[in-house]
Each structure stands twice: as C-alpha cells, then as structure tokens.
C-alpha cells in the first residue's frame, strides 16, 4: 500500500476551474458601488525639495472627489526590515513625499475621480514647485566627496553596509596553494508579474477600512497602512483576492495601498487604483544589479580554504528590503560548499533612481552567478571535472557552516548526478564540437526567513486554524498568500493527508487579516516549511480531538486509531470504524462545542534569534534547499547568439508534496533566470526609466524558452512537513552560471557580465581570436 493518499500526488490546484473560466477575481476586477478611480502624480525630477504643491485647480475639476498630498499622511515612514535592533532610518519611504523627492517616479499627490480619464486630467492640473538638487545616477557620483545627501542620515550616501569576517581569510589565502580572483557584474531585472499592482479601498463612515490588495504580505500591508494613515491596526482589514504573480515585486508595500485608503477616507467612497505597466516597471521593486570582486583560495586537491567577496550595489532612492538583500548576498555563499575562512563586504549606495529590493532568488542569484563561475574557473586551473570539484567541497547533512547554518538534509550530490546524467555530461563535457558545449552549476537557498524582521514580537510566524463541519468536511483558515505558486492547494493536501480525507473535503479560506490567523507572508520561500508545518500541526490537533471523541464509541484506545479514506478506525481493522462525519458529530454532541483546532509554527531555537547581521553568524532558516542545473548550448559564432538547447534542473525540495507543482515552480522560475542570463535588463538613463513596456523589457516568450527538464530530488528533511522544504525561489538560482559555464565549454569565452547578449559574446570571441 502507498504510504500517502493525498500528498506526493500530482493533483490539480484547487482554484484551477476558477482560473480557466475567467471566474477568478483579481484586485483590478473588483468593482464596488460608487467606486472612484485613483491616479498618482509622480515626481518629474530626480532630486528636489518640494516647495509647494498647488492642487486647487485639480480639486475644482468636475468629477474630482479627493486630492491628497504628503500633508495628509503621518510622519511615520515605512520600511520592510524594521524589527529591533535595526535602526529606524532604514524605514525611509513615505507613501506621499513629505519634503523631498528622490527619484523620477516618487509619489507627490494623488487624485480620486469618477473615472480614469478625469483623474488623468486632474493630475495635469496639479502644479508642483521644486527646488532642484544635484542628482546622482550612479554610486560613483553619489558617493563622491561633497555630494548632497539623498537621505539626511546617510553619510556619503551609503545606504547599507554589511560586513563580516569569520575565521581569518588572510591566513586562509596564505595556506592556499592557489588563489584566484576576478570581477563580475549583474544587471537590474524586474519581477514583471503580468498582473499590475492594484488596490481597492473602502473606508466606512464608522472609520474602518477594508482593502483588497495585490500583495504577497497582507499583514505587513495592514500595519503600514495603519501607520501611514494614523489609525489602529484593528481598523484596517486587508484581503488578498487572486493574485496575478508576485516574484518579490509585491512584497514591499507599494505606495498605492496606503494612498487608495487615504483617497477613500477623504472622498467617502470606494477607490480603486491600478498601476499602468509603466508605473509597475518604474516604481516597484527590482533586483539589485551588483559589481563584485571575488577571491577564492584552495588547496591543490581542490579543497576550498578561504573566500573573500565584496559586493557593491546601486540601490536607488530608498532602502526597501535591501538590508536583507545585502546580508543574504553574503551569507548565502555559506553553501553549498564548505569553507573555513569567509569574509564578506556588501555596500549599497543611495542614488536618484528607482530602487532595488528582493526578487525571486533574493540575494542568491548574484553571488551564485559569481561563485559558480569561479568554481569552473578553478576546476579548469586544477584540471578537474567541474562536477568533481563541486562534489569534493559539498556540504553534507549534519554540517554547520561558518555562518552557523545547520544543514539538516542535503540532496546536493544526488542533484549533481541526476542533472548531469540527464544531459549526458560524461560524453559531452569538453567533447562536443566547437560552438557546442555543456555547463553545470549548483544552488543553495533558504526555506524561509527564520527571524521576524518586520514585527518586533510575533506569537508565531505561521498560524493555521481548522473548523470541522458536521457533514465531514474541513475549512482551513490561513493567513498565507497564494501568489500563484499553489500554496493553498498544498496546505489543503497536508491537512487532508493528516486527517485521512480526500482533497474534496477541504476548503481553504486565506489571506484576510480580519478572519485568518497571522502569517508573515509569501516571501523567502517560507510557506511550505512554515505554514505547511502549522497546517500539519492543526490537522494533527484536529485528529487528536476526533480520536478522543471516537475512542469510546469504537471501544478502543485513542492511540490505536487511524484516520484514512474519510473514516476513523482501529489500526489494522478498517471495518471497525466510523465515518469522519460521524466522528465530528460525536465530538459536537459530547462536548456541546464547535470542533476547531489550531496549529502554529515558529522556527526551532537554533534558527534566527537576534539579527546580528554585523557578525554574519545567524542561522537564517530552519532548513536549506540544494540543486544543480546542467545545460547544453549552441553558439552561433558569427552572430554571438546563444541558443540553449536544454536545461536539466534537479532540485532537492525535501519531499514533493505535489510533484506537478514542484515541476511548475522549477520550469517557471527558470523563465526568469533564463531571461536574466541572456535577455532581460531594466535600463535607466540619468534616473529616467527606459524600460517602460513589455516591448522594451524583454522577458522570454514561449518561442524563446529552451526545453527544461525538471528533476525532483527528495532528501526528506527532518524539519519540513512530511520532509518538504522550499521549491520556489531556489529552483532557478543555478541557471545563469550553468549557461555561462556552458558558453565557456562551447567557445572558450568566460562571460562575467550580465546579460550575456549576442554582442557581448561576439566581442569576447573576437578578443579571444582563433578557433
């Protein structure tokens, strides 16, 4: 008999029918009676004091019902990383500018009108007087002596500095037989979810507000909206309807959320704001572009001894979640390879341009491109197979890394073997004709942030409640945000498995701050581990109650009972039992009470704790994922065009709760890294966004994508629910270096700057000459 009935199965998602019929309602689809349409006036200058905002003409325009400016919000700026002991100045963004604008796109005023045309017309009637300041479009400019401060607190316009040193790298390099050093660069890319950010706010006469938001973090938004407007958190209700993709771009509260609430408050009518694509691209989170200096020292046998890396990022006008970005870029180098000495410095500069934060693969994409390229460069020097050098240094289950990460399960070596076998590495590496090549790279990612960096004090990171219905079904209440990854389906599978019922007996109510228990949100690949464990616990507690209520009826010890096939019965004698419905009714009759249960998850004691980002010694996550991508490429040597033929992507997700969903995560996430490797680049010129449409911002289409073969590796993690860990952000982290390494195998040029455009390849080929 199979071990599991519901988990481990390729089950279709619960919201599938709604999504293929057009029934699924997204934020922008919501239409409320008397609803107004909001538009935001944005700064047209990159850096200036605001001297005056004249909204009088706009207010007089027929159809305009409310105009708001920075005067209408509190003096509490918002930030993403704000729990103690993080200094308050890392919260540096006002939803509507107070005194100053810091980039072209900064919010200055907003209008609500009876229709969009009127709102657009009204924006043109608002007159803003600026006192322009020198603007800086690169860290070189903003950090030069004498530059005006973009934020008062930031000397030399340094936004974030993270630096730590574990062991002694100088000694490590001295002990090394070989030391290699190089520089790399990555570009800015965008989350580019197809659904633009949207908000609908409905402020009641009684003074509370309900918002429908396109968000990955309803509970954070709730707090930020309350603080921005100056009202109790309890009077702000945030509901996330269906969400059209997040990828990190909907993690930091976008300003339209508080602004829509404010406009609704002022106008006394519901207000909807939907960003234009241009607003999404120019004003919401994008991935940091970095320049990197990286140095690795090794023994002759390939053993890594010391790593010294310096990351430098152009951060843009505000901080967003970048304290984490800069920290993670360092500490995620702590795996999947062992090292004794480790030094990292990450510096982020403020500049007058759109700002960067965390996008899928947050803080992992950039260092992994660097490290995995370096691994291949080292392997070549030592004349080792890239596969062998990785295996030789691979961390194993039970290891503790220099940053105190505890490796509880590890399928890295299995992933290396499976991915390389899939592309027939042994017969191809260094053996293909000129222009063709194979490459590989590994990945390492966290299964959720192990500390609460937003709230100072949380009862738990994820909570799940379950209500039993007399008919024999269950309703799950969860604060998690299904952003498309299928988390509601997976939570339902976990609960169904634990309770021994079919998936059709489970209903999920999610992402409503007023009715669902706290969950910190959908970011850092945390939902499966955190909410999954909470769901499993809640279901287990529910089952215990059912067993207690049933034991007498079945004349059995409650510990001898089993729940399966919608029944509860005595282990080993399925005929001796009752239906779940009968059991629930027995409980209700006996207790004269509703049958409900709760489950909470907090990371174990060896995770998180005080955020000593300065020491670099924080176990950031309950557990970690591993994986390897192996790719095959064809290079057109006349044009420099790189054609990726195949990507074999093996991912250690612990246990695949729903293999179809895991495959979908692998295949889909690779669209983003394939794009970042070869195509995508968010371009800004003198602070002005130049990639303002999906024509200019080139993400891969169905005709661009290579064949992706997802390979699931299961290491059965002791911490995750049923052994599961993340399969979301980590799944694409190895694509870029694997492609770069394959290009090297094919034509012998080492691409160190992203994106790897045909022009760059052709230049490199000409520089190299010959062959």
């Amino acid at each position: 008999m199979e071990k599991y009935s519901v988990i481990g199965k390729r089950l279709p998602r619960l919201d599938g029918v709604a999504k293929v019929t057009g029934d699924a309602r997204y934020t922008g689809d919501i239409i409320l009676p008397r609803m107004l349409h909001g538009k935001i006036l944005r700064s047209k200058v990159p850096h200036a004091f605001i001297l005056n905002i004249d909204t009088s003409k706009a207010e007089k325009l027929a159809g305009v019902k409310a105009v708001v400016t920075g005067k209408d919000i509190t003096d509490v700026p918002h930030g993403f990383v704000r729990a103690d002991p993080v200094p308050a100045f890392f919260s540096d963004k006002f939803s509507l500018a107070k005194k100053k604008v810091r980039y072209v796109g900064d919010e200055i005023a907003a209008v609500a009108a009876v229709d969009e045309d009127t709102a657009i017309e009204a924006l043109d009637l608002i007159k803003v007087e600026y006192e322009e300041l020198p603007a800086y479009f690169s860290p070189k400019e903003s950090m030069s002596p004498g530059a005006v401060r973009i934020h008062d607190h930031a000397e030399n316009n340094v936004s974030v500095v993270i630096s730590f040193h574990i062991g002694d790298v100088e000694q490590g390099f001295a002990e090394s037989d070989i030391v290699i050093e190089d520089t790399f660069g990555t570009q800015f890319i965008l989350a580019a979810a197809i659904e633009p950010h949207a908000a609908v706010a409905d402020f009641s006469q009684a003074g509370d507000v309900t918002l429908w938001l396109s968000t990955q973090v309803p509970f954070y938004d709730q707090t930020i909206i309350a603080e921005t407007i100056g009202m109790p958190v309890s009077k702000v209700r945030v509901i996330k309807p269906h969400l059209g993709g997040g990828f990190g771009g909907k993690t930091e509260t976008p300003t339209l959320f508080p602004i829509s609430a404010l406009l609704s408050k002022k106008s006394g009518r519901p207000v909807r704001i939907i960003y234009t694509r241009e607003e999404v691209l120019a004003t919401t989170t994008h991935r940091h572009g970095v320049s990197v200096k990286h140095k690795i020292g090794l023994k002759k046998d390939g053993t890594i001894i010391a790593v010294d890396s310096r990351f430098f990022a152009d951060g843009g006008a505000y901080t967003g979640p970048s304290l984490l970005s800069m920290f993670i870029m360092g500490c995620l180098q702590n795996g999947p390879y062992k090292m004794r000495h480790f030094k990292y410095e990450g510096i982020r500069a403020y500049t007058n341009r759109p700002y960067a934060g965390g996008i899928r693969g947050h803080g992992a994409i950039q260092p992994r491109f660097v490290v995995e390229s370096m691994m291949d460069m080292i392997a070549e020097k030592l004349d080792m197979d890239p596969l062998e050098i990785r295996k030789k240094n691979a961390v194993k289950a039970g290891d503790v890394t220099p940053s105190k990460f505890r490796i509880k399960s590890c399928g890295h070596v299995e992933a290396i073997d499976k991915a390389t076998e899939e592309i027939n590495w042994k017969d191809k590496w260094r053996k293909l004709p000129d222009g063709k090549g194979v490459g590989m790279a590994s990945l390492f990612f966290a299964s959720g942030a192990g500390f609460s960096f937003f709230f100072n004090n949380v009862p738990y990171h994820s909570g799940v409640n379950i209500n039993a219905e007399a008919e024999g079904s269950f309703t799950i209440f969860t604060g998690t945000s299904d952003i498309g990854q299928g988390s509601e389906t997976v939570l339902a599978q976990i609960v169904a498995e634990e309770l021994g019922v079919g998936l059709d007996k489970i209903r999920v109510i999610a992402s409503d701050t007023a009715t669902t228990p706290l969950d910190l949100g959908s970011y850092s690949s945390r939902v499966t581990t955190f909410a999954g464990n909470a769901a499993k616990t809640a279901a287990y507690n529910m089952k215990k109650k059912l067993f207690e209520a049933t034991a007498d009826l079945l004349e059995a010890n409650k510990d001898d009972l089993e729940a399966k096939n919608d029944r509860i019965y005595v282990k080993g004698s399925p005929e001796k039992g009752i239906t779940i419905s009968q059991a629930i009714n027995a409980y209700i009759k006996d207790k004269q009470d509703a049958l409900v249960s709760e489950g909470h998850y907090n990371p174990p004691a060896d995770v998180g704790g005080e955020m000593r980002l300065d020491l670099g010694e924080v176990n950031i996550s309950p557990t970690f994922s591993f994986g390897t991508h192996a790719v095959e490429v064809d290079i057109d040597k006349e044009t420099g065009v790189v054609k990726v033929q195949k990507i074999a992507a093996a991912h250690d997700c612990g246990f695949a709760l729903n293999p179809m969903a895991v495959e979908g995560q692998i295949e889909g996430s690779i669209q983003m890294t394939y794009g970042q490797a070869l195509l995508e680049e968010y371009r800004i010129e003198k602070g002005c966004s130049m990639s303002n449409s999906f024509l200019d911002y080139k993400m891969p289409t169905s005709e661009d994508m290579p064949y992706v073969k997802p390979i699931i590796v299961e290491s059965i993690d002791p911490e995750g629910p049923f052994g599961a860990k993340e399969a979301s952000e980590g799944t694409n982290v190895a694509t870029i270096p694997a492609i770069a390494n394959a290009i090297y195998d094919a034509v012998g040029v080492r691409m160190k700057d992203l994106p790897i455009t045909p022009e760059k390849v052709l230049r490199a080929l000409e520089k190299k000459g010959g062959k």
Partner: protein
Amino acid sequence: MRLPKFEYLEAKNVKDITSLLKKNKEAVIVAGGTDILPKMKQRIVTPKFVINVTKIEDLKKIEFGEKKGLALGSLVTLDAVSKSKPVVEKFTALAQASGRVASSQIRNMGTIGGNISIESMCMYYNQSHEWRKGRPHLCFKLGGDRCFVAKGSKECLALFQADTPPALIALGAKVTIVDGTGKEKVIDIEKFYTQKSKKVNILKATDFVKQIQIPTPPKGTGSCYLKMAQREAIDYPVAGAAACVTVSGGKCKNARIAVTAIGGGPLRLKNAEEILIGNTITDELIEKAADAAYEKVRPMPHFNISVWYKRKLIRVLVKRSIKQACNKAV
C-alpha cells in the same frame, strides 16, 4: 493607459477615405490599430478624428495570376499574407517577413498596408505622455529641437524597423497610393521611403495606401527574409535582411537585396547585388556580396546595440539570406 478622446468616423469605401481625410483635418486612419493605438495611448499622436477603414472589404483581397502577379489590398492582415498559398510559394521572403512580425495576435490584426507605413521608432520617442513630462526637451520627431540618440545630431535618428519592406523591395513590389484628390499613383516601393527618420514615408496627410503589387518572379527565382531580434516574438528586428535571387545554369541572372533596422528606412544594397549578377553562384561570391553589404551599411546605434555589432550582423544576415534564396531558386 487610456486612449485620448477623439471623434470616430467610419469609411464605407475607398472614396470615403479620401473625402473623410479631406474634410477632417488632424485625422488618422485606423486599420489594424496595432501601431497607431499604442501611440495614441502614449499621446504621441492625439488626433481629432479617427477614421476606421476596416469595413472596406475591397481592400482585404489577395489576388494572384501568373501574368498579373500578386496584388495585396492594403487591409490584408499580416497573418493572411504569411499563410497565403501563392505568397508562400512564389514570394517566400514576404511570407517569412509577415510571419515573423510581433505575435500571432498582432499578425491577425495588423495589415500589410500598416506594416509598410510604420514610422521609425526610438526609445526617446515611443514613450508615454507621463514619461515625457519628466524631460525638459522634445526630440526632433516630436517637433523638438534635438536628438537624444546621438548628442549634437542635426537630425532625427529614430530607427525604421518594419519587417516586410525589405522583403517587398527584394521582390520588386510597387505601391498604389491614393492622394487627396482621389487620384491613384503607382510607385516602386523603394520610392515610398524618404530615408529620413523624422518622417519615413512620402504619404501626405490626405494620402493612403490602397494596394501592393508584386510581379511574378521568373523561373529559377528564390527569396528569403531573415530576422534577428532580441526575442523570438513580440519584437522588432535588431536587423533584418531580404534577398531575391534568380539563378539559371548556376549563374545569377538577377538579385535584389534589402535590409531593415539600420536607419531611417529600408535600404536596398545595390553594390551587393552587382557582385552577384552575372556571376556563378559560389560560397566565395556570396561572401563577397556580404562584404559589400558590410561596407555599405552605416547603421544607427540602437538601444544597447552598437554600430559595430549591427554591421557584423547585417553581413551575416545578408550572406545567409542570399544562400537560402539561392537554395530555393534551384
């Protein structure tokens, strides 16, 4: 993004177009809408009147006869062009070019008349009203006094990027234009273009394109259009090259070569053609023709693509398109 307000007019027949254009100043014709409507949403174009011509069935015909050649009504969709049997068989380059425009939806909507009339594009021009508000100066193409592509340039350097024109030039197409008096004139498609980025074609405000004609190529003719874009779909070419070659007994009897996305219009490369004509087709000869193309083109820099790269690319695309055309000619 919303469209600006305008008055909507509908043309029932070809005569209607002329009279509506004459009567209503500041009018634009909307056929497929895939080029003009985005520009209107961005407020690059804010017409008082929009003339919908999509109800004129006469302009949606594809006619072919061995003697008469091919006649395409200007409202034939790019999808229909790319799938038309005579086009695929005898005017391959055109089928390839129209079949590679943007996406299937755009090809289902966009027309051949629209595609040849597409204006040049530029990252400083094809931007929204909101975006432009942050810029103190307008560029030439928007009626301003400068070009942002190359500082100090005395003229607009927007890039012409349409796919079908080089194919049509290679195939020797002619365009029928109806002017403000209702008079028709037929011109070589090469003459349709000004080679000036600011206004790439000769159409006046009251003119419109009625038809495109292509003579049936002689026996032994093959043609090919090759496009290199950053993406496989939803993209304009980084460069595109079309070649039409007539071969008899291994010798090139005739050749026409044209490229796109290098300047203010599609460019015919006569110097490359001359190398082929009258000579026996060999790989070396084709390389020489490609070298000639490389020497001739002086592309504009474009987005993040350098002049250096574009010239190299043109060389390769010209070479490959000649080769493929020759293969089809046999």
